[in-house]
């Protein structure tokens, strides 16, 4: 029910992708492999250290800005759609769960398309500026670089809507953005713990794994696939691509289920008191 949804999606993805590419893809000698470009886009520079400095944190957080914009716009629009639907749709259409799942499916399509366009814009820009070579590991890495952030964005957008139903749209987006920012800041703490006590990574790297935001950094991952491991050559074998994918899937399922519970509980949905919509 958002007329300009597709154009807004394209604008955020194109501007975001081009900006990320210009800011973060900087190869030596003007040549870069696809896998290298994807690693640089996701915040990896080949090691764990984020260095607990404000510059480093801000630099990392800026990579998330296109996702934040998507979450804000689509999360709030979805919330407003829910507000209208809670009266005018549900008074006509009693199959609330079917309606909800349909809307969630549409949002998943948007989140996936957004990630495709974001990556495409970033890689196209890199190809224009540098000599970009496609490698086998890069193609496989691209699949993960597409799926993991798309699932993450999807879960976060659904969470914005979910919290907005209870606390309003500003609080909804604010809470989700704050949670993600806290995760980024925790990287700094984990970095300090690693430097001074070897705690963050350790033999199993459990502390890093505890930070869900780490699943977005491709360069901290490894897998059982040789061609992918060679492309990533992660210095720490702590994160696993499939585990991160599963984590994001679980996040999506949890938020989806919470949303379904909310939709079924009649009392929680009400008119949007902020806009009258």
């Amino acid at each position, binding site marked *: 029910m*958002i007329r*300009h949804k597709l154009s807004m999606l394209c604008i955020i993805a194109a501007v975001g992708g081009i900006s990320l590419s210009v800011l973060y893809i900087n190869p030596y000698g003007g040549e870069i492999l696809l896998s290298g470009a994807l690693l640089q886009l996701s915040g990896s520079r080949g090691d764990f250290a984020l260095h607990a400095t404000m510059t480093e944190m801000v630099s990392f957080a800026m990579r998330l800005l296109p996702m934040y914009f998507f979450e804000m716009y689509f999360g709030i629009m979805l919330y407003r759609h829910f507000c209208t639907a*809670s009266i005018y*749709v549900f008074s*006509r259409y009693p199959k609330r769960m079917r309606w909800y799942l349909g809307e969630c499916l549409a949002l998943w399509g948007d989140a996936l398309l957004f990630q495709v366009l974001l990556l495409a814009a970033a890689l196209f820009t890199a190809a224009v500026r540098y000599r970009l070579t496609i490698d086998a590991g890069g193609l496989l890495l691209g699949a993960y670089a597409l799926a993991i952030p798309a699932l993450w964005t999807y879960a976060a957008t659904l969470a914005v809507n979910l919290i907005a139903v209870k606390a309003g749209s500003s609080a909804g987006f604010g809470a989700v953005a704050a949670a993600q920012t806290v995760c980024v800041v925790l990287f700094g703490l984990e970095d300090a713990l690693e430097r001074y006590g070897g705690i963050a990574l350790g033999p199993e790297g459990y502390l890093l794994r505890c930070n869900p935001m780490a699943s977005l950094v491709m360069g901290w991952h490894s897998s059982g696939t040789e061609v992918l491991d060679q492309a990533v050559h992660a210095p720490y074998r702590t994160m696993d691509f499939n585990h991160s994918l599963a984590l994001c899937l679980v996040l999506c399922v949890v938020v989806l289920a919470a949303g379904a519970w909310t939709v079924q509980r*009649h009392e929680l949905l009400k008119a949007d008191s902020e806009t009258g919509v």
Partner: protein
Amino acid sequence: MENGNKTIRGRRILCDVNLELYGGTVYGFIGRNGSGKTMLFRALSGLIRLDSGTISLDGQVLHRDFSVLPSLGIVLENAGLYPDLTGLENLKYLARLTRRIGAGEIREAICRVGLDPDDRRAYGKYSLGMKQRLAIAQAIMETPDVIMLDEPTNALDETGVEDIRRIVLEERDRGALVLLASHNKEDIRVLSDYVLRIEKGYVSEAEVGG
């Protein structure tokens, strides 16, 4: 409704409400802000569940035999439509959910409330009065058996008020059960066959409209 009770966040919104309502009648509900009028409409429509008590329609029980009233048009205060869509697009989207009417009936409903179905402006650009008119159009477009109007003449000019009053009476004469909540005493007086007062969740009979 039989012995209807509803409590939200520790506050009793509806208290032992007993109502027997008939088609072809306009019931006017009066009461202060927060007295429970809107919540009563939500409960009667099926949008919320009662904590205890039952609502039945022609022998069938709400939330047991059906989850919302099967033929319902509702307007609630502060509940808007989709801001990016035109009036016609909004109503087409809602009409698709029930598939009871086509484009002709939708356009007719928009004309009945004094709006132009070919107006290309998005709903978000409408004035408050136009939004109110469109909300009423969506409530009546499917010629429902039950129509619930919460402050239907809010934000309307004199002509708008006259239009809506005419529509309410036409719908009643067609056989619809019309529930009308309003702070406008004149609306209640002119339109209501029966007047009910809601105070702190309790419903009692008030003066009969004329």
